[in-house]
């Protein structure tokens, strides 16, 4: 029995010239040609706007389906639809992209400072303005040796570091969840920008090997595609414990997405489910995490920094402290708004905490324990724009990782259908005819442009703040003020209210 009205409605106006372009473009099969005109199956429309972008006559529009239910704040249409879907299928609801629920966005409740008179702002266009950032474990102090001539030599042995020319890196997105072209764009852009991308847990496609100095390879619970050459083909290794969009649960790439190519990089037979267990079965506690961190260091002869990625959960500060003490060189905290290729909706929408609060607490905790230098903090999960980057850095992040924002630059329209594998923009799909829609050269150019624009904006703000290198903002919460927040949140964020 059909219960749900469609979510969207596709309208085709009289100016249609019947070129059928839209029909070809729609990967969800919502459009067909019948009786000499384009006919839409509204139920199938995902509002991905591929058709509207490509219609030469601007004849096609997507609107919300005007189904008015009796107003009910509690029993919203979303809730009803989910219940009906579950009644039909008996299954848990799967979804893609990130949490879209109206939880508060703390980035939008923090404002940055600027200089006026008492200290000067700096002109970023003409004076040096430094964004260079090194990720990795730092000693708490340095030792030098001075020879008779007065020349100075560093005697402290430094741990391996990743050098970044911008504090923005690309978040882990696996081959399988996204197409090869997406990874090629991320890798190409990372190389051009002097930053890094992250393979996610799907192994390292051979095509990426030339970018190895700009790649972080992941070691997740599924251990897909992990062998010694994988572990040595990278700038760093990341142990993935969790992900903001689905803390505490594993992953699961359904067999139909395990194509021949995916099977090659994950090194499992094609067509079988690729299951990432919820925990790593060699990590049941913090000392086991230490064991795996050092196993990876041993396997790479201590030449690669080893990071750990965790989801932002309630007790994140204490967990992060444990992770750092376990020997992680970097810790990535992924907030509850982080994206995903596929996650159960109940988890995506209801588990975890905002990255802003998690980041603030983690930085503070590590400082309080005097171990902040032992690991770099990378914040991710809902970073949308340069202002968010600056605020994250002022709260204490060494760098931020962006996933969704990078995909948006490539064409993602946030239709949240990633889990279907039908992404019309060639991003979250393994279908060759869809993947080729995403042009690698153009994608690199767009992503490089976007980050360059962010870099310019970041420099602009640093100049206004009167500092000429990013480390002078890093952790400087004095330069942030909160609006529209109660005292408890100000306290958690460690910032003052605006006006004080």
């Amino acid at each position, binding site marked *: 029995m059909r219960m749900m009205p469609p979510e969207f409605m596709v309208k085709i106006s009289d100016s249609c010239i019947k070129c059928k372009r839209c029909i070809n473009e729609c990967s969800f099969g919502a459009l067909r040609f019948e009786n000499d005109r384009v006919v839409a199956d509204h139920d199938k429309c995902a509002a991905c706007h591929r058709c509207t972008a490509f219609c030469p006559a601007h004849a096609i529009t997507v609107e919300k389906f005007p189904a008015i239910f009796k107003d009910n704040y509690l029993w919203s249409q979303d809730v009803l639809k989910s219940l009906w*879907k*579950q009644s*039909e*299928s008996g*299954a*848990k*609801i*799967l979804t893609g992209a990130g949490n879209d629920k109206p939880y508060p966005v703390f980035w939008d409740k923090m404002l940055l400072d600027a200089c006026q008179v008492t200290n000067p702002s700096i002109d970023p266009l003409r004076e040096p303005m430094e964004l260079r950032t090194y990720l990795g474990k730092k000693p708490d102090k340095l030792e030098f040796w001075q020879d008779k001539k007065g020349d100075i030599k560093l005697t402290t042995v430094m741990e391996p570091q990743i050098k970044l020319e911008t504090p923005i890196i690309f978040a882990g997105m696996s081959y399988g969840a996204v197409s090869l072209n997406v990874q090629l764009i991320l890798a190409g852009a990372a190389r051009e920008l002097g930053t890094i991308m992250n393979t996610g847990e799907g192994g390292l496609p051979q095509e990426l090997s030339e970018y190895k100095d700009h790649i972080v390879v992941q070691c997740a619970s*599924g*251990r897909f595609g*992990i*062998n*010694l050459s994988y*572990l040595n083909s990278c700038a760093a290794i990341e142990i993935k414990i969790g992900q903001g969009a689905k803390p505490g649960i594993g992953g*699961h790439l*359904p*067999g139909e997405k395990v194509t021949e190519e995916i*099977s090659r990089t994950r*090194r*499992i*037979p094609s*067509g*079988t*489910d690729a*299951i990432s*267990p919820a925990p790593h*079965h*060699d990590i049941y506690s913090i000392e086991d995490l230490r*064991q*795996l961190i*050092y*196993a*990876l260091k*041993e*396997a*790479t*002869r201590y030449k690669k920094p080893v990071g750990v990625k965790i989801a932002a959960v309630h007790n994140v500060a204490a967990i992060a402290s444990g992770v750092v003490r376990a020997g992680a060189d970097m810790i990535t905290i992924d907030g509850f708004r982080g994206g995903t290729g596929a996650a*159960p909706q109940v988890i995506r929408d209801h588990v975890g905490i905002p990255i802003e609060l998690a980041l603030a607490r983690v930085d503070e905790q590590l400082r309080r324990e005097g171990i902040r230098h032992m690991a770099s903090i990378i914040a991710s999960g809902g970073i949308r724009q340069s202002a968010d980057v600056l605020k994250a850095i002022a709260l204490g992040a060494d760098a931020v990782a962006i996933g969704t924002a990078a995909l948006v630059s490539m064409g993602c329209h946030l239709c949240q259908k990633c*889990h*279907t594998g039908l992404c019309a923009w060639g991003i979250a799909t393994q279908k060759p005819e869809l993947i080729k829609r995403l042009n690698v050269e153009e994608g690199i150019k767009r992503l490089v442009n976007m980050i360059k624009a962010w870099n310019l904006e970041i420099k602009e703000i640093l100049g206004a703040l009167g500092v000429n290198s990013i480390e002078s903002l890093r952790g400087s919460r004095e330069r942030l003020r909160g609006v529209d927040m109660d005292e408890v949140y100000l306290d958690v964020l460690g910032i003052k209210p605006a006006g004080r």
Partner: protein
Amino acid sequence: MKIDAKGLNYRELNERIHDAVSNGVEEIDLVNVLGQRYIGTGLDREVTLNIYGTPGSDLGAFMDGPIINVFGSGQDDIGNTMNGGSIIIHGDAGNVAGLSMRTGKIFIKGSVGYRAGIHMKAYQDQCPVMVVGGRAGDFLGEYMAGGKLILLGIFKKEKDPVAGRYIATGMHGGVIYVRGGVNKNQVGKDVAVEEVDNEEKAEIKSEVEEFCRHFGITRIDDIMASPFVKLLPKSSRPYGKLYAY
């Protein structure tokens, strides 16, 4: 070559092993080993390590090629994510042996702890093999995605069952052979228990022969005389029906 591990921490010991191997040494006796982790981890040459003592966890993790003989028992995570080579344990092994191994062989004369062989994977001609002479703890072969696990149940107390509970839950590839058989209620619901035909028995035998060779056991025919059952996944997609789109 011989390295005395007494008093060395794992980093020093492994540094020496790696140095020796890169200098072309092909066989190393490690004596007085006591708890040092990561022995053989990350080694990618066909060298032989003979360990006298009790090596620490993650023995041979991520390794690709070496032969490791342990004259004693091993601890946890033996052969973690290993990619090639052999590990031969003359005593017992701890928990999570052979986690995610994708090639190579592990022979354990005695028993293994919980979660042995979980998430083993095979790909094309790469097929990991683990043979256990004693018994296995719970969750044997959980999430198993490929490879062969052979459980012989020879070296164990009469009254102990050959394997624990929840055998092969979530199994979606590979095969587990159990000498003597298992109770249906010990096995995960996604798993089929079937008889072993003669052709397959010959395959098992060749692995058992290798096992016996390593440990100087001569009664191969005795061992093979008992019946075997095999555990197989019912589907390569155990969780296909859990999600609504």
